[in-house]
């Protein structure tokens, strides 16, 4: 079973990523690509296990706006860590659509991007093969303070300095 960073702890991941309803047949918790989900939305939502949707870097979270309450996970892919679109997607999920479930970073995820990911509302991380989850966890504590508004701390430093 794949190790997942959830919050700041390591857990076993119960989710399996699948490409079709058939593949999902005997699995409890699955994550499916957005297009597959949209094509058979009713069947996917009728399943008994937990459901997640996998977004590519360029996918628009708005497509999921009506379905978010039924989703346990939204996974956002980073094909390369230098493609920063997923950061905005996560913030929109949290701040515009008020999604409270798991937002999971997948793809090119390693120690040196963890801090930014967490600030943008990611709370689960599948670390890439060339890094280890234990090492990646160190990245969450790179900085002890941040200037801007983020999902983790909506009040920017200048409001907290006043408090």
């Amino acid at each position, binding site marked *: 079973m794949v190790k997942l960073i959830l919050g700041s702890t390591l857990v076993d991941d119960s989710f399996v990523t699948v490409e079709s309803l058939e593949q999902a047949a005997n699995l409890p918790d699955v994550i499916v690509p957005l297009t597959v989900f949209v094509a058979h939305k009713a069947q996917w939502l009728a399943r008994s296990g937990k459901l997640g949707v996998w977004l590519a870097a360029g996918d628009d979270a708005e497509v999921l706006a009506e379905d978010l309450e039924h989703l346990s996970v939204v996974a956002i892919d980073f094909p390369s*860590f230098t493609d*920063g679109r997923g950061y905005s997607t996560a*913030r929109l999920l949290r701040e515009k659509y008020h999604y409270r479930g798991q937002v999971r970073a997948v793809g090119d995820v*390693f120690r040196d991007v963890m801090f*930014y990911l967490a600030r943008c509302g990611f709370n689960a991380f599948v670390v890439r093969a060339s890094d280890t989850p234990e090492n990646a966890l160190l990245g969450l504590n790179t900085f002890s303070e*941040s200037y*801007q508004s983020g999902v983790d701390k909506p009040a920017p430093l*200048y409001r907290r*300095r006043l408090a």
Partner: protein
Amino acid sequence: MYQYDEIDQRIVDERVAQFRSQTQRFLTGELSEDDFRPLRLQNGLYIQRHAPMLRVAIPYGVLSSRQLHMLAHIARTYDRGLGHFTTRQNIQYNWPPLERVPDILADLATVQMHAIQTSGNCVRNTTTDHFAGVAADELIDPRVYCELIRQWSTFHPEFAYLPRKFKIAVNGAVADRAATWVHDIGLHVCTDDAGHLGFRVIVGGGLGRTPIIGTVIREFLPVQHVLTYLDAILRIYNRHGRRDNKHKARIKILVKSLTPERFQQEVEEEWARLKDGPATVVPEELARIEARMIRPQYAALPAQSAVLKEALERDIPFKRWHERNVHAHKVAGYASVVLSLKPTGTPPGDASAVQMDAVADLADQYGFGEIRVSHEQNLILPDIAQDDLPALYLALKELGFATPNIGLLTNIIACPGGDYCSLANARSIPVAQAIQERFNDLDELYEIGELDLNISGCMNACGHHHVGHIGILGVDKHGQEFYQITIGGSQAPARIGRVIGPSVSQEEVPDVMEQLIDVYLEQRNGGHERFVDVVERVGLEPFRARIYDEPHLEVANG
């Protein structure tokens, strides 16, 4: 200048620790070259032609004497005793050993400096008017907003991996001395009918491969909304800017392809949700930054200095220097002094450790310990009592910083070019030197009058050649260095220069400059019509004809 508090200091210290770890992991092979490259770029570290190049941020171009001494120390300790001041108010070192860079950053942190986001596809150093705080036509001191934006942009978690680099300029005066029309975002202060302060928001300007003058997407943005509005613009850009082709990835291309109207609509929709949210600027924060800015305690001086008057009457070279290199100050009895880093024979913008130390000492002796870096690659002592100008002049002359050429042809703006930069197609420095040698006669220079000459070694346009009255762009033709000449560009009002014809070889550049100047001197109506005005009035043709229709010059095809 802004003084860090404990939190600002901690954040910079933690950055040093992070980069030390990244460098170690790269050196042990734990991080690959592909992983390390974007990480080191976000600390201004390039791997260049001869060695790494480190670009250190000089936020909005302001330095204390203590900081300049540190820059000298770094040049001496880790480099070959030299630094290069850039067109974006930063400094670059061309020979720092990679494994020592974490130590350099640690040294910088001791004087509240860093190299954060001086490269990479993120929000870069925010730039402004180099006369901020001392200019007579100022509505606000832009440095307060620059600092606000510096903090907002520092490790902004959402915008660290944009499609391409992102540059913001803030102008707080009536005249635009920050080139706000040719930045990704330009903020130009203005007031509404009720007298409230705000910014005109200009988006999508830029030089580089596709020079474009920006578009106003909001005529008036109240100051408290500046950060939420920036968030909205950056979010639209981060999500929709092109990532498939780095030459089409700047925000200017997105604005153009969506149309400015559509882009504006998207930004306004996004902003409607962010407006008045937690990132809205509170007046207490502006007051806090203001309180942490060290301001000179000016003495009450007579508006006219007798010492200065006497020296101007007696000393012709001093008078000449005063005319070119000394600027009016908003406080009576003071002046701002531009130190020319463009003497003939030195690469434009270069300063040695010895010179940096000496300038820092002069800032302490004659000023209030403050130095500015201008985007024309000169240094400025912003607050000098007029009584001290004659003594300061002598000291600067000794240092080689008193060349009276500010605003003149030999005050050349140039990137490091092919001698140092691995992106360059051609060298800039020898071209600049050849031109300076050709126009070494001060009387002739004064006769020519105000002229901005800019040289870039490649399309990336670090030398801002598009907005030079004369622009020179290095191009590669079958492995040979050639130079394309543009004329009629201007920084304010922002205008892009036009190409006069096929590019010419390096040896021909000084001749071409001389021909351009000859045509100008023949065509101008009286001594006050500047080169750029003549180009505007008579067009390219007389210039083109002189250079290309005469048989002596062999030009490359195309």
